[in-house]
């Protein structure tokens, strides 16, 4: 970086003379800019004279400095003069200075907190309306698929089932096993104090098959497949593939959403069963380590868990599958344009999926309680 490219001294009539010695380019102008403003602040001159006789090079950054000095002087109604400026650089100043009066349109003032809350509320309400409309659209498409199964793109559904289901099996099994193991360990210690450690089997059996197995599966599905559906459909939206489908007369919900929902609905209960079974195995490992024979554990689980519990868990998984796949696809179809839009849709798919899973789980809890299941 040039050293001391700009220096100043006062003239006899109270003006400040800024002498440029060297190049004013993007690398040297930063220092010159700061020095010029410092000198102006120190001297508070009546006028400003820039001596450019030893200016060796000037690019856009240098021109910006000379124009900024002119603007400041003009705003203070004080004289400004550039002396001995090379005609080439004078032309550069004229070129950039031509648009000096062209100012950007000001940004709209930021909303007040009340306006922000209002906008957010309206946005949530609109989202609920869109969600309800989408549920109707999807139900109609699924009913149509049930009437005419030939219209369903089974190849896409099978591929999605493999990606969302088969490929998710290892992580579901691992997490299910660890969940069962950890729960058994955590509960065995306090329950042993009351001589009730045999009932750890009841706890693991009921919670894994009826509640945690389906919930764990749904959460993994939301993070893994719901986001993937949103990203895939979002990219299609950005690249106008969805528009192409629509103009070809192919309904995007039937063409893209139905196969994904069918795949998710088929796979989620199966994955949930695996999660439950591996959770039971995890619990068994702990019970064996506590000295209980395997047969005791199995009998205890069988006595605690009914077919109703298993069916309850499976029915939850079924609904979770629909919810996660549908919300993932909806967020994908809602993708706006721009590079960040797909990422935003993916995030919204996961967050909305998790919220809806919790809401649906709560509804199931109330319904099961009322039905005495």
């Amino acid at each position, binding site marked *: 970086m040039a050293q001391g490219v700009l220096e100043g001294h006062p003239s006899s009539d109270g003006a400040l003379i800024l002498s440029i010695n060297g190049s004013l380019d993007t690398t040297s102008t930063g220092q010159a*800019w700061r020095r010029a403003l410092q000198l102006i602040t120190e001297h508070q001159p009546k006028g400003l004279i820039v001596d450019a006789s030893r200016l060796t090079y000037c690019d856009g950054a240098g021109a910006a400095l000379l124009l900024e000095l002119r603007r400041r002087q003009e705003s203070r109604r004080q004289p400004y003069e550039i002396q001995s400026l090379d005609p080439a650089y004078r032309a550069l100043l004229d070129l950039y200075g031509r648009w000096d009066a062209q100012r950007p349109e000001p940004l709209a003032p930021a909303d007040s907190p009340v306006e922000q809350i209002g906008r957010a509320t309206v946005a949530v309400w609109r989202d609920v309306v869109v969600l309800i409309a989408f549920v109707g659209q999807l139900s109609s498409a699924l009913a149509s698929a049930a009437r005419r199964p030939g219209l369903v793109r089974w190849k896409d559904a099978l591929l999605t089932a493999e990606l969302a289901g088969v490929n998710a099996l290892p992580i579901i099994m691992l997490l299910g096993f660890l969940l069962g193991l950890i729960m058994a360990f955590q509960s065995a210690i306090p329950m042993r104090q009351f001589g009730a450690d045999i009932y750890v089997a009841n706890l693991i059996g009921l919670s894994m098959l009826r509640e945690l197995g389906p919930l764990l599966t749904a959460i993994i599905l939301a993070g893994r497949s719901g986001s993937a559906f949103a990203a895939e459909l979002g990219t299609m939206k950005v690249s106008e593939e969805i528009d192409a489908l629509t103009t070809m007369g192919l309904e995007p919900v039937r063409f893209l959403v139905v196969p994904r929902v069918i795949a998710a609905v088929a796979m989620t209960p199966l994955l949930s069963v695996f999660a439950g079974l591996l959770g039971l195995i995890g619990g068994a490992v702990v019970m064996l380590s506590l000295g209980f024979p395997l047969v005791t554990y199995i009998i205890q689980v069988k006595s605690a868990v009914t077919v109703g519990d298993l069916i309850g868990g499976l029915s939850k998984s079924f609904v979770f599958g629909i919810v996660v796949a549908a919300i993932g696809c909806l967020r994908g179809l809602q993708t706006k344009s721009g590079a960040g839009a797909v990422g935003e849709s993916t995030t919204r798919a996961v967050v909305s999926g998790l919220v809806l899973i919790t809401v649906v789980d709560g509804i199931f809890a109330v319904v099961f309680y009322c039905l005495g299941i």
Partner: protein
Amino acid sequence: MVRREFNHQVPIITVRHFTAGYDGHVLLRDLSFDIYPGEVFVILGGSGCGKSTLLKHMIGLYQPLKGSIHIEGKDIVTAQGQQRLGILARIGVMYQQGALFGSMTLLENVRLPLEEYTDLPGEAIDRIALMKLQLVGLGPAAYKLPDEISGGMRKRAAIARAMALDPPILFLDEPSAGLDPITSAELDQLIIGLATHLNITFVVVTHELPSIETIADRVIMLDKRTQGIIAGGRPQELRDHSENPWVRQFFNRQVEAVG
């Protein structure tokens, strides 16, 4: 247009024995040419002949199979680390779709290279970035996001960003593609204006004939079959006097098979 004269003594870009390809397939073979300071140099040719590939090698995105590309005397093919960054600071690139960062306003897009490469104070960066946008006629749109402006404005904003550091060389990939004739003509005038007033060297990839005839000082024409340069010179000379039937066909928009 006013025909400008150039110093044809010292080239600003020198390409020698350049061969490029991928997956064992050669796309361009043994290209050599020079580009001189201040000229608008157009690389043209039919679809798939390797125009954009050549451009991407010239800006250092890809490594050629053979040959050298010297920019202001430094080989971008072999340059590493700081030397490579030094070369990249001397060039600006406008990509086909503009490649503006969607989450930033136009002003922030132009500010970015200035923030990363210089020690200019914030107000100076703002001033310079606004000046560049004003130069391409986008001063009033400085606070808009790329999504909120038209395709032609996006391309102009991309030129403003490419010019942020005042590079002496600008590479433009298909600047007129997808634009209406009026917007395309405006962009052509902007290129001519910048070349004339700021003495910027432009390397432009295009196959838009009206643009070529308006902006080009010199062209080279690439050919898919020969994998090389089949013609070079001023566009009017090539159109009227080229002995190569493919060149005449290209310039006269003839569709019948030749040769």
